[in-house]
């Protein structure tokens, strides 16, 4: 009986005592307090410490000594951003209303852009129908090839509009899906497009989530399936054109498309960004976004640093001078042969 009463009273007392502590969470602009808060949020939630061999404790020791109570918001924001850059993750962003957004762009360095909008406008988008500013579609090479440019998966496209687009491609021999410079957006949007290219439910990858605050606390990989759309399907050849700026949801799109039987990935290595990001905040009101759930490919491998194309092609200066896109031309050549 006493034990039972203790079981009731102890949590109640704990809650009451905790409720007293809650009100310590007040607005706080102390650089030290905010730095420690940022470090702790990342420490307890970030998902790629082990994969990237990041020693977060030593990073704390390195950056902590540069935090001073008198430093300006600008300096604090800069030092915090530099610390976050150690994670080499474009999904890790510190944001402040007056400082803007920090964004790691090291993943872009050393890769060709493989993308020239002037060439596309002059040659391939010139008679295209624009679904909106971001999504364009066209029939090229004497109506033999269907071409879709999807510039951002932040933009959605309705199923009925996808139906219309695929209807106009019904006599084409193949389709080019150009997702270059598509920095991501919503997986729902990318899945809507990908679901047009398969006839049966297909295993396309896995997802894991953190089960606790430890760096190794992860769930078992949970399978991700892609199901075919109930509308018009395209089961003939498809080439997806990529470059390094294919990031986040676009990286996920490429990872899924790569599994499908009639699909070839052509162009450059994607940018990665396979961690599903969450958002939290600091005592001074700055927000912090970070990767929490790694999405793995069908072989349970990380794609955080990008996905290699099946066929690597680079945009050449000679083709640019002739208003030609080397990647599209190579895709056309493959589809027509």
């Amino acid at each position, binding site marked *: 009986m006493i034990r039972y009463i203790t079981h009731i009273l102890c949590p109640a007392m704990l809650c009451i005592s905790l409720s007293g502590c809650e009100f310590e969470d007040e607005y706080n602009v102390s650089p030290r307090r905010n730095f420690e808060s940022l470090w702790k949020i990342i420490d307890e939630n970030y998902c790629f410490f082990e994969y990237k061999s990041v020693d977060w404790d030593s990073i704390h020791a390195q950056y902590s000594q540069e935090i001073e109570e008198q430093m300006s918001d600008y300096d604090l924001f800069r030092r915090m951003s530099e610390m976050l850059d150690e994670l080499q993750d474009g999904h890790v962003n510190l944001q402040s209303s007056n400082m803007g957004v920090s964004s790691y762009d090291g993943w872009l360095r050393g890769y060709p852009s493989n993308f020239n909008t002037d060439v596309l406008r002059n040659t391939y988008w010139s008679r295209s129908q624009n679904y909106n500013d971001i999504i364009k579609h066209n029939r090229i090479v004497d109506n033999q090839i269907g071409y879709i440019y999807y510039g951002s998966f932040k933009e959605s496209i309705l199923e009925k509009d996808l139906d219309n687009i695929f209807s106009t491609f019904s006599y084409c021999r193949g389709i080019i899906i150009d997702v270059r410079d598509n920095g991501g957006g919503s997986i*729902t949007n990318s899945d809507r497009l990908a679901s047009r290219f398969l006839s049966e439910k297909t295993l396309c990858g896995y997802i894991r989530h953190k089960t606790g605050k430890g760096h190794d606390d992860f769930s078992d990989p949970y399978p991700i399936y892609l199901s075919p759309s109930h509308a018009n399907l395209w089961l003939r050849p498809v080439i997806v054109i990529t470059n390094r700026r294919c990031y986040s949801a676009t990286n996920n799109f490429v990872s899924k498309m790569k599994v499908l039987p009639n699909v070839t990935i052509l162009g450059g290595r994607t940018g990665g960004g396979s961690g599903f*990001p*969450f958002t939290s905040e600091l005592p001074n009101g700055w927000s912090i976004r970070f990767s929490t759930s790694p999405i793995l490919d069908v072989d349970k491998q990380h794609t955080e640093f990008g996905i290699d194309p099946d066929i690597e092609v680079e945009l050449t200066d000679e083709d640019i001078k002739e208003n030609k896109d080397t990647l599209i031309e190579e895709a056309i050549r493959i589809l027509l042969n």
Partner: protein
Amino acid sequence: MKRIITFILLSLCMVCRLAGQGDEEEIPRSMNEGTLLGFGTSNIKDTYLSPFNYNGWGARILNERMKTISAGKGRFSRQQIINVDITSTKNPAENVNDFGAFVDYSLSYHYRIPIGSSFKLLTGLSAHLMGGFIYNTRNGNNPLSAKVDIDLGLSVMMLYGLRIKNLPLTLRYQAELPFGGIFFSPPYGISYYEMFNEGNTSDVIAFNSFRNKFAMKNYFTVDIPIRRFALRLGYLNSLYYSDTNEINTHIISHSFMIGWVKEFIVLGGKRSNNKSRVNSSYY
């Protein structure tokens, strides 16, 4: 685990059985129904959304019905409370909002112990169902924390009638304390995308008890009769704490309540035709 489920099911059966017995009574018993609006403060923290407290206001509408039942020769009463609560709170820096909306329903059966002529002590069990969400306006992929709880709890009420000059007042204190049940409890870092788009919902329901949840409602009211109705003024303190899968949540609200109460008799078809007892204008 099986014992807990059996206990919850048996308790629910008992509550339903008591509910069924209430319909056999021949003598009409009056129903006390109050509808109150409440305004006050709200303090919310859900570490799935943010590590910080959000403070702001809350508004609620509460409807309660209470009636004695035939079981135990009138020594038991049934109380039903439906409560809708909305909140708007801000983070410490006051640049982000959390909006909350919760609906809860409780069905309680009390054993009535009269103590003297003006004091009644009511003790019993309650079944409680709560659903709602907290929505954070800034978070991208984790904007929402859903709450679904089904509990059994203890319910204690004290009623005290007094007179100030010629004005009869009724004071009430009621406490509800859930002691066990089940609730929606997603794993630490799981996204709603993984749960609801990809279907990984295997570990999202958990049993709750005092080890991972503490919730309590404290309810003070005073009824002041005004003509055929009564004005009910009150204070409702609602506490909800949970600590599961390293996600801490609290929802604390203080509401000042005001509303009206009426006492009426609900008649079934047979009894309403008994014109010797009730003079019905319809039948």
